[in-house]
């Protein structure tokens, strides 16, 4: 039973999913502090797409903005899911890597600069294949370097979700923020059905897809650090909490012993039950501390 307050909140919220990458990035900064770098008017486009009859985009589907969040220096890099499925090409990859590298240089000099990655992406842009894969390896290296000094926060809000090599970038982040609508995984259902057959994964079974890749499942199994509604305020609030919280004591991707034991405890002779996994893995003990931004709908129990 939702209260009047919930209805009002629902009506007044600004959907984050409906915003384009540029609007999403800008919405996260303190007012009047955001500045876009290598924007559309600089016309740094993919040199490879035109050779294959694909119209390039003047920002190559990647928005880099620098400014302040909660009064602290931050850079936001947003992938535009509507252009080539948010896939990583040479230029969009270089923009993300360079932004992370520059944030690390400033952080090393004492001006700690957090990075927020808005990841709506299918991974490598196949028209640029090996340069896309190389860019992802360099983004991963840049995250590993920066996260020692300042938090790297990945946001997967949907509806494209975060797949392919970029899911490893999310996995290396200090914190992951997701909505229920979002999905996060290495291989999309279609790829699995194609490589391992429909019995392994029926890509048309939407309930199965969200039961495995969905934001609620990732959060409930301790693989995402915040679950928020599709509400720009809540996404912003979760990011601000993590920027203030700072670099976690241990990054999730460094907790090898914990996760190796969890894998060894699985019975691989049958498919895993996502609901069961919530009990076994639970959100509580993830070292990064699963926190939920305020304003989560009533049904979601508050986590300390």
């Amino acid at each position, binding site marked *: 039973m939702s209260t009047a307050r919930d209805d009002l909140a629902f009506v007044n919220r600004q959907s984050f999913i409906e915003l384009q990458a540029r609007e999403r990035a800008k919405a996260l900064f303190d007012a009047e502090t955001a500045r876009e770098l290598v924007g559309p008017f600089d016309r740094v486009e993919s040199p490879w797409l035109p*050779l294959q009859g694909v119209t390039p985009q003047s920002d190559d589907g990647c928005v880099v903005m620098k400014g302040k969040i909660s009064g602290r220096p931050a850079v936001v890099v947003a992938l535009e899911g509507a252009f080539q499925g948010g896939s990583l090409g040479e230029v969009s990859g*270089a923009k993300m890597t360079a932004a992370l590298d520059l944030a690390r240089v400033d952080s090393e000099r004492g001006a700690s600069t957090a990075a927020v990655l808005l990841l709506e992406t299918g991974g490598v842009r196949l028209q640029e294949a*090996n340069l896309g894969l190389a860019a992802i390896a360099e983004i991963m*290296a840049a995250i590993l370097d920066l996260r020692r000094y300042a938090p790297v926060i990945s946001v997967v809000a949907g509806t494209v979700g975060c797949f392919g090599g970029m899911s490893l970038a999310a996995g*290396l982040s200090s914190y992951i923020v997701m909505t229920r609508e979002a999905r996060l995984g290495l*291989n999309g259902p279609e790829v699995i059905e194609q490589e391992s057959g429909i019995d392994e994964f029926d890509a048309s079974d939407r309930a199965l897809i969200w039961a495995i890749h969905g934001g609620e499942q990732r959060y409930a199994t301790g693989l995402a650090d915040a679950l928020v509604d599709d509400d720009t305020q809540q996404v912003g609030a979760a990011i601000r909490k993590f920027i203030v919280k700072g670099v976690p004591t241990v990054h999730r*991707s460094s907790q090898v012993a914990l996760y190796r034991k969890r894998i060894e405890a699985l019975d691989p002779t049958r*498919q895993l039950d996502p609901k069961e996994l919530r009990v076994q893995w639970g959100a509580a003990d993830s070292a990064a501390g699963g926190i939920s931004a305020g304003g989560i709908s009533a049904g979601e129990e508050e986590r300390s």
Partner: protein
Amino acid sequence: MSDYTGTRGTAWFRALTGNVPPMTGDPRSVLTADASIGGGPARFLCVVPDPRAGFPCARHGEVGLEEAYTLATRVREVIDEDRNTAKRPIIAIVDVKSQAYGRREETAAIFLAAAAAADAYGSARLAGHPVIALVVGHAFSGGFLTHGYQANRILAFDDDGVMIHAMHKEAAARITRRSVENLEKLGKTIPPLSYDVRDFAKLGLLHKLLHVENPDHPSEIETRKVRDELLAAIEDARHSPWDLRNRLESNEARDTRRATLRTRALLEIQWRAEAGQTVS
């Protein structure tokens, strides 16, 4: 798919480690051993097929959950053991079909397992360990990102049995709505699309292409030659920054990755420019 996957990895692991028995207690699909190179110890790691693996989608040389966490464990071990001593080189012998494609893997978050292995390799590199990838066979997408692609230096054999790519030919052709032949033709004129390792080398990402007479059966002489090349790569890595800038500094990279270099330069100028206009 080619039948190479795994046989070359195993052959070169044995040859380069001088048949030191692999460490015990790990899944059969990950070979790990410490062996000497250039007079000092180094850790060698290789992912190989295990037809009896517990996870059915990781039995043909794919990098799955167990492989990724085993790699992460064995690499982090080196970081911990050498914390206060000379930093051992870490050599990833790469012959991986790809990442594992399975529902179990996605449910149990293979994206994090892969990240954990890449974290270990990258963290070892940042801690001062020379991390060298030696591509002796296939190095496809998630499998390579997990095992090898965080290396300071990447060496690869120059024969047709070596393929470094973001996606298998058939899948890439289907997704980009092309025939395989068309994809191969495009690869001749557009280097980042090519499946030929000699074209891959044009991207400037490789430290060196190695010619080996018989890559399937390493001879004594060829093994010694490859070991010397590894040693040269280790020394080169030891005397340069621990990040991946070397992938942008070769002549090939300056030619083929011009757009990357231009983007980075422009972004830095604008990042530094104090007078930049705020977004209205």
